[in-house]
């Protein structure tokens, strides 16, 4: 599957605090020659949300799972279980799925390298990457992993991608203002298209 399947499932929080990280992940995925997929792309109320997520996972050859926000929230004193659940679905698809599903590959990211052992110790033995809550480190880790997966030597390094992302990020408010939109109102489809068009314009 990974040789021809370029779809990457992004499993991370979608709240405003994480938005910059999410935008960085999508940028790195597209810049590395892959296609970004996530639960936000499904906008069909007739379909169950979990079913949508399972369908997207089934179609993706790769997965990026950031479990760094699995921590008790101050209001309910409970952690968010969505990310570990979706990681579990991804690993189960690889374990029990048909031949194509067994070729799935994924990267698991956390704030600290061994923090997961306190709340999801069953995945011990997997190589967990740490971004220490820093955007630059997240981009570098992801770029290195995706370059390794694609085996394309021409994919740039993480530091260059981080610089490109910073200059791309500056164009978002200007593009939105031309349509009388606030950047928070962008849909996942809008953002992906923005990244694609920005890279197309700057590549020319």
């Amino acid at each position, binding site marked *: 599957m990974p040789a*021809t*399947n*370029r*779809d990457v499932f992004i499993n991370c929080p979608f709240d405003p605090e994480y938005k910059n990280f999410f935008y960085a992940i999508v940028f790195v995925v*597209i*810049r*590395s*020659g*892959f*296609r*970004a*997929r996530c639960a936000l*792309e499904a*906008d069909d109320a007739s379909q169950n949300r979990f079913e949508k997520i399972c369908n997207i996972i089934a179609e993706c050859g790769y997965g990026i799972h950031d479990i760094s926000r699995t921590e008790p929230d101050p209001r309910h004193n409970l952690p968010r279980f969505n990310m570990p659940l979706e990681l579990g679905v991804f690993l189960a698809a690889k374990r029990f799925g048909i031949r194509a599903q067994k070729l799935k590959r994924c990267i698991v990211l956390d704030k600290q390298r061994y923090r997961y052992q306190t709340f999801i110790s069953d995945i011990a033995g997997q190589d967990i990457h740490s971004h220490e809550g820093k955007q630059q480190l997240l981009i570098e880790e992801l770029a290195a992993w995706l370059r390794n997966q694609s085996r*394309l030597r*021409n*994919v*740039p390094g993480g530091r260059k991608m981080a610089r490109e992302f910073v200059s791309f990020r*500056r*164009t978002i408010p*200007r*593009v939105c203002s*031309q*349509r009388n*939109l606030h950047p928070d*109102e*962008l*849909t*996942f*489809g*809008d953002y*992906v*298209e*923005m990244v*694609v*068009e*920005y*890279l*197309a*314009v*700057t*590549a*020319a």
Partner: protein
Amino acid sequence: MAKRKITETSGRDGTLVVKKMAKKRARVAAGSRPSNKAARTTGRYEVAAVTRDGVRILRGKVRPKHFTSKQIRKAIESSLSAKA
């Protein structure tokens, strides 16, 4: 054994054979090869651009809601030229 003559009505529904033969004739005339599995798999991605370093930028699965691709490109171009 005598060769079975395939007529336009030899298919179960009468039109099936004609359709299949027409498709094959069109394919031969166009000089294209029949599609294979690999071609179909790679064909599901739309390459929007190739960067200077040779990376193929793939278009997303979902379309933008608030803009068209053209509008986004124009806005980015004008934003970049204003910056320069």
